[in-house]
């Protein structure tokens, strides 16, 4: 049982362990941004519609604005900062977004990436329909989605070793 006031939590984010004391009402999205300085996770609507704050909790995508930080105690989190294998290299999906113009202002991009990376892991041969279905929980106001679909198709082909 815990009470109001600071609650100690420990989370692993992108492989690195962090211990902090948090107020119960602190949203996981704000914890990542303000307490850990991981500002790649974006905050759009804060009611679970836009998808910009999507991160992985124990490998599955969730809205980080619809979880309290205290609920993440003991869990493994992945954010967009952990996608690229190194400073000079992008994840294949990031690379494809860049090449296919899958982003313009970039605000929604972290949420799209964190939604679509597990999607591609579970479905390496997606059809265009399945991709549109998979990204229906993420809003983009710039691209009209077509370039995002193109990027996912290209990334999927590359991750299968079928395209360069």
């Amino acid at each position: 049982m815990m009470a109001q006031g600071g609650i100690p939590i420990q989370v692993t984010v992108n492989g690195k362990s962090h211990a902090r004391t948090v107020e119960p009402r602190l949203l996981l999205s704000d914890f990542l941004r303000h307490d850990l300085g991981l500002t790649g996770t974006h905050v759009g609507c804060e009611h679970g519609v836009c998808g910009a704050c999507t991160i992985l909790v124990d490998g599955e995508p969730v809205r980080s604005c619809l979880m309290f930080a205290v609920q993440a105690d003991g869990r493994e989190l992945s954010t967009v900062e952990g996608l690229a294998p190194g400073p000079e290299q992008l994840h294949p999906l990031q690379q494809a977004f860049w090449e296919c113009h899958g982003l313009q202002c970039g605000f929604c991009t972290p949420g799209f990436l964190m939604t679509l990376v597990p999607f591609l892991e579970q479905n390496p041969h997606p059809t265009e329909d399945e991709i549109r279905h998979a990204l229906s929980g993420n809003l983009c106001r710039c691209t009209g989605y077509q370039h995002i679909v193109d990027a996912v198709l290209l990334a999927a082909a590359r991750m299968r070793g079928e395209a360069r």
Partner: protein
Amino acid sequence: MKPAPFEYLAPETLDSALEALARHGGEAKLLAGGQSLIPVMNFRLAQPAVLIDLNRVQGLDYVREDGGGLRIGAMTRQRTLERDPLVAALAPLLAEAVPCIAHPQIRNRGTLGGSLAHADARAELPAVAVALRARLCLRRSGGERWVEARDFFSGLMSTLLEPEEILVEVALPPPMPRSGWAFVEEARRHGDYAQVGVAAGVSLDEAGRCREARLLYLSVGDRPVEAREAARLLEGSVPSAEAIAAAAEKASRDEMDPTGDIHASPAFKRHLARVLTGRALRRAFARAQGEAA
């Protein structure tokens, strides 16, 4: 916006959760998946003094076969239902409906019990629970009671749950022999609330006549709406295109009173209900006949 301050309790046993609820009663809210509660807390439309988080309670997350039916713990995630082979085998209507709920990001957190207790008439799970003749176990400190899903939903976002009760388990009866099912809904965008949805279940007798039909609708009333008269038009005879059309007409014209919204007038909702009923019944009967053959 950000939620207002609250006292946070994270009990690890059902007994301590029930004790906390008995102590705080109406001041407390139960936090299940949080996919409806946290948005309204973020808007400060809900400002509970105490939040009792059920996510650390042991023993509320399971899918078990029981006498050919299912027992499902209230904290079972919707994503688990979507992937569980027992659900696909013994409650295929539920398996067909779950992917229509919002998005994977939401279903990874959202729970069966949370959705039923929230009782949004636009949601899939309340209608499916009534269609499946689910029974719900409501526990309180020192006791429990079982209620039928069709009695549980008592009005707009309202249920029979008392302030000191927790919905802990959902029991589904075994599927009937020669039964078929279908869940269909129409949403403007996949994952949005449906403008209308229908959960259909049918079973046939050995001569191929419809023994029982159930038609449950979402988004056309203040709770799941059952079309009993339309179902009776189907029962007792061999399914035909004419009978399906008559049932769809009856249900959409006489057995619902939908209110309109910015995207759908009442007349359009009736039209959708009629068309979707036909689709659902055709699919359900085809499945029932396939199983019989």
